[in-house]
């Protein structure tokens, strides 16, 4: 069964439906984030001071390092798909677990920073804080969703590879590459006042 799934994947000329579905979903989410980023800069251009008085400039180093770590997980996620394509199911699961561990540490540290920021400046006090927490929070939410997708695949792969699960893996890898590009965009937006 696993070998069949891998063989069908290699013999396809076009991308599978699940990949296309994820591509369209990525398009809509990218547009959503485009709107959030656009809102950030729109509010910046219509405010005399940004951040407003009383709010410190955003931290740069910690978010930068964390984002680098997250972006690096595109490698194990892609490895997971490539391995599964060649019917190396255990290697695929291992790669997913590696990605999950790094992403979990990333998320825990980012949440710590997030809560720390909330203590310093509240969205109830300014538009800056409102868009800041909405944008950054939305991205963290997308990371959580991505981790759930990976966890689900790790579990499903225990009983072997099917066409369905292989396409799921391909779509999840695509999702993660998108989330990682988004991470860079959100990071640059979030730290832009300090640049």
């Amino acid at each position, binding site marked *: 069964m696993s070998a069949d799934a891998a063989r069908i994947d290699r013999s396809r000329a076009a991308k599978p439906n699940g990949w296309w579905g994820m591509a369209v979903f990525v398009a809509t989410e990218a547009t959503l984030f485009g709107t959030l980023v656009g809102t950030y*800069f*729109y509010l*910046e*251009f*219509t*405010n*005399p001071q*940004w951040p407003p008085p009383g709010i410190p400039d955003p931290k740069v180093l910690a978010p930068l390092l964390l984002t680098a770590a997250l972006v690096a997980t595109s490698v194990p996620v892609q490895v997971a798909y490539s391995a599964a394509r060649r019917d190396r199911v255990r290697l695929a699961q291992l790669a997913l677990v590696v990605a999950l561990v790094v992403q979990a540490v990333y998320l825990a540290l980012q949440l710590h920073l997030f809560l720390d920021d909330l203590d310093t400046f509240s969205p109830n006090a300014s538009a800056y804080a409102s868009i800041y927490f909405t944008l950054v929070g939305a991205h963290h939410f997308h990371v959580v969703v991505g981790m759930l997708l990976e966890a689900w695949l790790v579990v499903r792969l225990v009983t072997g590879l099917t066409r369905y699960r292989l396409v799921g893996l391909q779509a999840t890898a695509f999702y993660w590459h998108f989330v990682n590009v988004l991470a860079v965009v959100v990071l640059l937006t979030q730290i832009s006042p300090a640049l």
Partner: protein
Amino acid sequence: MRRLGNLELLQWYGLLGAAIVWAAQLVLAYGLTVARCGEGGNFGLSLDTWQVVLMVVAATLALLAEAAAVTVFLETRSLEHDDPPPAGRRHFFATGAIVGNVLFLMIILLTGIGIVVQSPVCGQS
């Protein structure tokens, strides 16, 4: 074979090039006006210079897209729009793209000229 590969790329640039370039010009032109006229200060912009540069770059790329579409059309002019792919498909897209690119070019020029002739810069109508 190499020539066929080029024809495919020309078809896609001819179809999508002007559209994407106009979209970029719109977002940037609009963004520049918000930056210039917003409370956030005018960022030391010479708005007109930027708008002209934007318009010229966009118009040039749109004209190149039109050239690409016309090239593909001429290469496939003996075909019908529903002839077998890939050649028939390229002819089909090139036909529509020729008309579309003219539209985009006109919007690009009207936008740039319209912004530059407005005076005072941030005045309301």
